[in-house]
């Protein structure tokens, strides 16, 4: 079982924060197939958030095929994200290393690199959402 947290200053809608935390836990292997997610009432009692926020997050996880609701029992993890992504980490990291070297050669300092990454990342994920 995992415990959720909400950061109200992040600007990220609370339901997305919950979805993100489940995905993160799946990637890190903290949650595995068959594990139960906290019940809506537990989350609500612990975080003092609207139950619909939790329901919406769980619906999204179901939509992504990561979890499934079992009537009267709760919501359970149906797929793990750990292995497939860990295997891909190595290749992605070396690509990123090469890119970083290129960026430094082009004269970017650390702050510029991180700003460029952030803005590209945000633009790409915005497009993905829309």
């Amino acid at each position, binding site marked *: 079982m995992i415990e959720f947290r909400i950061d109200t200053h992040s600007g990220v809608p609370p339901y997305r924060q919950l979805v993100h935390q489940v995905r993160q836990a799946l990637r890190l292997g903290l949650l595995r197939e068959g594990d139960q997610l906290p019940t809506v*009432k537990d989350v609500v*009692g612990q975080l*003092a958030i609207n139950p619909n926020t939790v329901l919406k997050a769980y619906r999204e996880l179901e939509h992504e095929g990561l979890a499934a609701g079992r009537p009267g029992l709760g919501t359970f993890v149906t797929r793990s994200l750990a292995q497939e992504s860990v295997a891909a980490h190595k290749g992605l990291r070396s690509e990123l290393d090469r890119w970083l070297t290129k960026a430094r050669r082009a004269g970017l300092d650390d702050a510029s690199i991180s700003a460029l990454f952030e803005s590209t990342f945000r633009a790409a994920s915005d497009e993905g959402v829309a």
Partner: protein
Amino acid sequence: MSAIVAEELGKRYGRRWALRNCTLEIPDGSVVGLVGANGAGKSTFLHLTVGLLEPTAGSLAVLGGRPGANAAQLAKVGFVAQDAPVYDWLSVADHLRLGSHMNPGWDTAMASERIDRLGLDLAQRAGKLSGGQRSQLALTLAIGKRPDLLVLDEPVASLDPLARRTFLADVMELVADQKPTIILSSHLLSDIERVCDHLIVMAEGRVQLAGPVEELLCGHKLLTGPRRDMRTMPSGQAVVRASHTDRQTTVLVRTAEPILDPAWVVADVGLEDLVLAYMAASTAPTPQQAPLAAVRS
């Protein structure tokens, strides 16, 4: 079904209108956050919904009936007034007895279980309880009657952060269990953001903005760009609030369409920015008036 339907609702005290032209609709099962400056008309609106005040103008239907019309109507509505009033000289047990005698649908088991879980001493006089305990007792009385509508007027204003969180968590558990409609007024926007799915912003006795939180957030954008005359804004973008420096313009617009003008850097709007913009817009003497409340059916 709608829990609350107000049409052109108004309340006047002498020559002063505390609430005017209030037209809105609140869907059943919503958790509504009511925000606005002191004196904006929040308490007046809440007192009208529970039947403590009579409207001067317009109409108001609460759960399909007239507020305070009869015993059946009263039984459906729970109310915790500002500062969580309790009877200081009565004990906690007396309050529970009072609740069970005065409410036909009183849930004895739930009320006692709550008091037990909160660790309140049944023999204690309410006047000796801490602020947090008093509001929990008042909340217990309000939800012990199993209301379909629970009205909370600044319920957490005087509570410490822990008591505040516990109080809100309890209200949210109630929502998860029984799905009542909840209206809660507060100045604490971070609390509103956590618990509410519906928002009403009031200023100077008028509703400035009303609707589902998510829809409102999606329907507004914060634009930053080179200084610009607001009269040149496209018709589909209603200016809520604009500020200018000698070179730059920052403007909050209400729009249903994507912003295509490449001169603007477009950002999403958070609940706090949105509320503050509408509260400020009502006092700004600009010709560009804020668009009035969106009414949702």
